[in-house]
Each structure stands twice: as C-alpha cells, then as structure tokens.
C-alpha cells in the first residue's frame, strides 16, 4: 500500500514545486527580484534554491525510480 502512495506524493510534491517555480520566475514577482538595487547574483540564488528543493525531493523519493 505504501508503494502506491509514494508516487502520488512524488507527483504532488513535483506539482507544488512547479507552481513555486512559476510563481518565482513566470509571475509579476519577477518585477520584485529584478529590481535595480538588488545584488547581481540574486537570480542565481533563487535558481539555486529551486534546484536544491528539487534535489531534496529527488532524495526523498529516489527509491521510487528503482
């Protein structure tokens, strides 16, 4: 039973992460982080953040791929 729920959770988490990426990079929020007075590396930090969340999710559900 557990094995059947895992893929569901993985799908849900992936979808949530996807929505977060869209919120961050494909919404009016870009106007906020792309403000002139922000440090030049801010987009890279945000990019790194979503990659790290993706890596954490991958670690959490890695056994599902096997």
């Amino acid at each position: 039973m557990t094995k059947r729920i895992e893929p569901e959770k993985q799908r849900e988490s992936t979808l949530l992460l996807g929505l977060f990426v869209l919120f961050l990079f494909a919404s009016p929020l870009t106007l906020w982080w792309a403000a002139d007075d922000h440090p030049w590396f801010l987009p890279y930090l945000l990019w790194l953040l979503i990659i790290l969340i993706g890596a954490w999710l991958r670690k959490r559900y890695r056994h599902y791929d096997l």
Partner: protein
Amino acid sequence: MTYELEILFGASLLYLLILFLVAYVTDSGLLPESWTANSPIYVLSLGVYATSWSYYGSVGFAEKEGYQFLTVYIGVTFAFLMAPILLKPLLRLTRDYQLISLADLFAFRYRSQLAGVLVTLFMLVGALPYIALQIRAVTSSIQVLTQEATPQLLALGFCGMLILFSILFGARHISPREKHRGLVAAIAFESLVKILALLAVGLFAVFGVFDGPGDLNHWLNNHPEATRALYQPVREGPWVTLFFLAFCAAFLLPRQFHMTFTENFSVKALGTASWAFPMFLLLLNLAIPPILWAGDYLQLDMDADYYVLGITASGPRWLPVLAFIGGVSAASAMVIVTTLALSSMCLNHLLLPASYPDPKVDLYRWLLWGRRLLITLIVFAGFGFYQLLEHNEGLVELGLISFVAVAQFLPGIIGVLYWKRATRIGFITGLLGGISIWTVTLLLPLLEASGFIQSQIDMKALRQSSGLGYWEFATFWSLSCNGFLFVVTSLLTRQSEEEKSAALACRSDATIPVPLDGVVAAGSPAQFAEGLAAMVGPEAAELEVNQALVDLNLGYDETRPRELRRLRDRIERNLSGLVGPHMAHMIINQQLQIDSQSKTALADSIRYMEDRLEESRSRLRGLNADLDVLRRYHRQILLDLPLGVCAIAPDQTVVIWNRALETMSNLGAHQALGKKLNTLPEPWSQLLAGFAAVQDQHIHHMEVSVDTKPRWYNLHKANLPDPDLTLHDPGARTGLVILLEDLTDLETLEAELAHSDRLASIGRLAAGVAHEIGNPVTGIASLAQNLREEPDPAIVSESIEAILQQTKRISSIVQSLMNFSRSGSVGADFKSFELNEIIQEAIQLVKLTQAGKQVSCHNGCTGSIQLVGDRQRLSQVLVNLLTNACDASKPGDRVEIFAFANNGSVQLEVMDQGEGIPKEVQEAVFEPFFTTKDPGKGTGLGLSMVYKIIEDHKGEIEIDSAPNVGTRIIIKLPHNQTQSTHE
C-alpha cells in the same frame, strides 16, 4: 594577441582526436561499464543543450537582453524539475515501444505516417539554421583569434570530422535501438571541457581582468548601470515567452530528445538529472556576467558574442586556445547529436516509406548505410545553410528560431501524455497551422534578411499593431493557431480503433487493458519468421524473432496462443526501434495477422491482461488503482489457497495454476500456464483432462501414482461461464475451475492411527498370549522330559505327536498375532479371502484377553463366503468389534458373530448381551477418541477405525442397541468389490 591558424587547427585536431579516443575506449569496452554508464556521465551528456549559443552567444545575449539570457536555462530547469510527471512518462513510452525520436513518438501515438513525415521535415527545417549557427560560431571564433577570414576549407574540414565521428560512433551498431555508450561518453567529455573552459574564462575575468571579487564589486558599485542593464530587460522584455520556449526546447529539440530518452540507460539517471543537469547549467552560466563586465571593462572592440575569446587575449597564452576548444566542443557536440537524431527521423519517416528495400537485400546493412548517408547529407545541408546565410543574424536569433519551431510540438505532446481524445487529423492540422505562422513570422524574415527572397508581408507593422515583441508575437500566434486547430479539429474528428489503442498506451495513468481481440494466425515462432521474411528478409526475420523470444524468455518451440500474441507485440516493439513505429505496425499487421474469426474468451486474455497490468501498475491511479489492489487481493487468495487450484479456459488451456498445485505437482506455474491440459506431464494430464471431461462435479479419494508413489486426492470442479461468449451462444464452451485436495497426509495419519490401535490391542492381548503360549510350552517341556527316559517307541511317537500339536497351537497364536499387528501400508492391494478365516482368527485373538475368556464366543458364519478387500484391516474391524462386545458383556454371556451373503452384499453382525449403548451416545461412538471405558482401558480409536475401514471398503455400518438387552453391530460390504471399483 593573435594566433596562427595552424595552431588553432592543430589544437582542434588534437581535441577531436581525444574525443575519438574517449568514444573508442568506451565503445570497445576498455573501461568498466560502471565508469561509462552512470548518472554523472548521463547528466554531462545532457549538457549538449549548451551549444555555441550558450558558450559564446550568452554574453552577447546578456549584453543586449540582460538577465533574459537566463530564461534559456531556467526554462530547462523547470522542465527537468518536472521530470516525474513530464519526462518520466515520456521515457517510459520511448523505452517500452522503442521510439527513438520525436517523430517516432508522434507516428506511434497518432498512428500516422504523415505525422512522422511532417515532424521530420519541420525538425529538419528548424534544425538546419541551428547547425549552420554552430559552424559559424567555430569559424567566427577562429576569425576572432587569428584576425583573418576563416578559409572555407577549414569549415568543410570541421564538418568532415563531425561526419566521420557521427558515423563511427553514432551509426556504429547494426540497429539504431542499441545504446551508443561511446557517443554518450564523448558528449559528456565535451560538456566537461566546455564547462571547465567557460569557468576558467570566468575566473580569469574575476581574477585576471579584475583584481578579485572585491575589485569587481568595487567596479560594479562605480558602474550601477552594469547591474541595471541586466535587470531592466527582465522587467520589460519577453521573459515569460523565452522561459516557455526554453521549457519546450528542453525535451523537444532533436538533440535533447535523443540524449534524454534514446540514450538513457536507467530511470534512476533521469531522476538524478532532474536536479544535477540544472545545476550544471547554473555553473555554466555563473561565468557569463563577469565575462560581460570584463569585456566592458576592457572596452573590447568586438561583438559581445565573442567576449569569451576576447578577454582572454590579455591572459596566459594557453587560455584563448582553451576557450576556443570549449567553443569547438560546444558546437561539435550539438552538430553530432542533432545529426544523429535527424538521421534516424529521416530514415524512418522519409527514406523507408519512400523506398522500402527489397527483402532480398540485407535490411540491417541497408539501414546502417542509409543512416550514414543521411548523416553526411544533413551535415552538408547545415554547411550549405551556413554558406548561404548572411552573417547579420546573431547567434541567439538563429537559436531562438529553432526553439519556436520545436515549441510547435507541445500541443502534440499534450495529446501524447494527457489528452487521449486528440486525433491525428487534429495534430496534423494544428502542426501545419503552427508551421505556417512560424514560417511567416520567423523563417521568411530570416531568409529576407539573408537576401534570398523579397517578402511582401510587412511583419514589423503587423507586430507593432499587436503590441507584442518579436519573439512574443511569433510564439503567441504560431502556438495559438496550432493549439486552436489541434483542439477544434480533434473534437470534430473521430479516432480510429488503432489510434484509440495507441492513445491508451500513451496515457501516464494507464487504464485497465482491454482483452485480446483474437489470436495470431501463425502458430509458431518458425511461422513468424517465415511471415516476416517476406518483408524484412529471412536473415533479419530470424534474428528479430529470436531476439523477441529472448526478451520474453520463451523457447523456439513455443506454441501457446497467448505467448505467441505477446511475441507478436514484442516483435512489433523491437521492429519499431529499427524501422519506426508506423512501418513496424504495418509490417506486423500485414505479415502476422490476427485471426479475428477465432473469438477469444475472457479467460484466454487473462494472462495477457495481467502482464499489461503488472507493467503499468505503478501508474494506475484513482479507481483503477483501487480496483487493481482488489484484483491483486483476490488473486493472492487464489494463489495462496492451501488447495490446488487450476482454472482452464474454454479451449482447455491452463490460465491459473496456484502455488499449492505447484507443490503437489512439482510443476511450476510458468511450465503449466498457457498449455493445453492434455499436454501437461503425466499423471496431471490424465488426471485433470480426464476429470474435466467427465460429468461428475466431485471425485473422492482418487488414487494417483506420482513419482511411483501412491497419492490420494479429492477433486472438485465448477463451470466458469464467460458472459461475453454465452450471451449470444448459450451452448458456448465454458471454462472450468478444478480444485485438488491432497489426502495423502491424512491417509498416512489414519494408517498410523490404525497401527497404534492395533498395538494397543496387542498390549491388552499380551497377558492372554503369554498364558496361552505358556500352557503348551509347559506341556512340551513335560513331554520332552518324559521322552528322555521313555523306551517305548509307541509312547515316544505319541509324545512327539503331542509336542507337534502344542507347537502348532503356539504357531497359530503367534501367526494370528503377527497378522494382526503387521503395520499395513495404506492402499494395500485388495485380495480375495475367506471371510470365515478372519472371523475365526479374530475370535481366537479375542479369547486371549481377560474379557474374552469370560464370555462364550460363537462363530455363526455358515459356509464359504469369499470377500475382496484388505484382509488385515477387516480382521482389525472384527477384533475391535469383538473386543468391545466382550468388554460390554458379563461373565458367561454369549457373543455371536454372523455372516451371510445377501443380494450382492455381505452382511456381518456382531451381537452381545451386554449393557447396550445409550441412544444419545450412539452417534458419537464412531468419532475418534470417544470412549465410555475407564481411563487407561480404551484409546477411543477402535470404532472410529472400524468406521473408516468400512467406509474405505464402500460399506455401511449400523448400531442396533437397547439398554440392558445387548448390542448388534451390522456391517454391509459389497460382495465382489475389486480394486478397480475402489478407484
């Protein structure tokens, strides 16, 4: 600092030689597979995404459009983070159905050759500018470093090397469906080189041009316009459009599709790539802003596209060469992989349908050389495009034109993965619409700018009137037109049955598979090969059939209809990897036809459906998943039932063979499933087929010889009518379920109990036996004593006679005892014997007991009655009954035993004058361990053994008893029963 052309040529040649070496060492197996087929190599190989556009063009893009250049990579990041719901289903499809390109995927889903042709042509048109861009990047980079025009021969030589590499390592195997480990390793190596080169240039920008991060920050503080120039376009430009285009390109570009799916070796690697590949892209792009600022700082007088080379001029002498090699690696990897992917598409969807080879020709060689020829043609077409193009388009523009082109496949992908109602006409109409808008908005302006044509359409005015930017306008209108036509036409048209079935196979939440619609007309793998030979030639047909047999773990002698159906499916999948899904489907449909006349029952499809369900189990969702859990639960009950269960389809083939039956028969399910009952090994064939054929629903106590040992079974069966078949034809054949109950252990236990009961009786007889033997022994001793001194021969002779008589008496007692106590095996042969003999023996034995001595036993059996049965066990019956009668009698009472033949049966009666058996006890006396005797005087097994033995002899037993009057036990046995009637 300028460089000699020869140095750069030599460096490029050396680099390409190393690349050849990496590919060769990997392909020839000199390196362990774990080194070359692992997740890091796969992730690096995906780095083919970063072409010379990324390597050189990103800096120019950043200069013009600021941080918008990041969209090209963040869009890819989005696609890869969505891998579990986007890329993994696609990977499953491409692996399961051997689809080696996007054109294959669409041709498979929409069951349309035209779809494959359109996709291939469009990919070709979209990719050629991109290939040209790579060649241009290499020649321009040489120009930057040498400050001289690059000879065309050098560009041609570069193309020649790429053709050679692609042919040697990308079209090396006979079949394109095999993985090219050498190619993957080489592309991974190229990615490593370009990221290291770009990071080296980036570090030089920070530490060589500026004086470290502090100095860079200081410069940025003094030049706030530098940071502003990066951020401002994000707020004002087509950020979302570019993000969307990059998302599509991440898996729809031919090279990305090829490396992500076709060359993938494990799902796990894709999982790792979901975050590691975005990380690779992040690192690659980290160097871009410092390089741009370094270029600005140095006030380089060149196109920002080539700042990567330009800023290194002030650095160590090796750095520009390294930077140049990085660019070569970026360009060559893209051209090689794109060419390979396009060649597969062109082969399957253009060349094969246009000129399918004669079956006499070796198909594999034809395909291999066809592919090689196409590789050459595609690279030269790219070179031709490069020659024709004016150099006024930036690297980014050429790349983005390709991006918008591949984005046109997105509606089709939605049809593949999520919308099963999408039709082939919808897909083709939508794609044609999208292509038309793409041509008008992007391709024509490009050709116009290059001076090829004079367009009458004023795109600029149209664009301005719409209020959209250049890329937004082209992307929005091409995709809107595409999507609208796709949806509307799909809703207005109907799918063919084949399309419906393909759409179901593509759905990520696969639904319950449909039952088989018939069996393959060919009845054996040999006939399969014969049929296929007419299309693919005898040699290829034989190889393909054998490969599919190996894949399914089947033998060449396979004849089971379901397995042959699976074999057909497998061959189609394998052929799909060879000649494309549409051609494979056509060949299979023509040469391995389904006999639709032979209507199959649900039971015939069970294994086929269950295999499909097992394959797609992890993808079932909602109600389907719940139903599957229920199905597995019920199946588990059948499999684990401690009774042998065998379900048989109407055509007498086995569809269920559970674990208990595997243990009973020593025949694994894989050996029995799908076989006809009469082809199973003996004795199961005779036992099951025989039972299936008879009318009886139950057979009890069937003796079967298994491995020369007797075993006993109860058999039960029930019909399994198939509603589909019986609805129209009530007399249609039905399936059966047969249950086997193994009684052998019970029989053995009963035999042991009977023996224990006999031993208990012997214990009770022991004292009497001792006494009975003791008297004649004393007599013999006295006679022998007298004989020693007896001179009279007459008396001696008389004494000897007396001794012999006493000895006979002892022998008789001992013989009776031995007959009784012998441990008889279950199922001993039934033999004919004289009933009177065993009655006499039983009386003799019982009279040895204390109780037996006190009563008068009378044998009322008159005449000779021959009985067929187990003599020893029937003797036990009489001893047990007489012992009970004597125990119940008072001293001096009379115990009588009568036997007479009556209407084909023999009736035995044992009567006593004892206290009788109370009515309420009479029903319980035959139960094991029930006794009315005092503790220690009876085991409670006597009458239960009597009941069992009489039942085994197909007899009946009754009790007629009245308190204080006596008891009469009546036994009726069939008179002439033989062993055959017993079975």
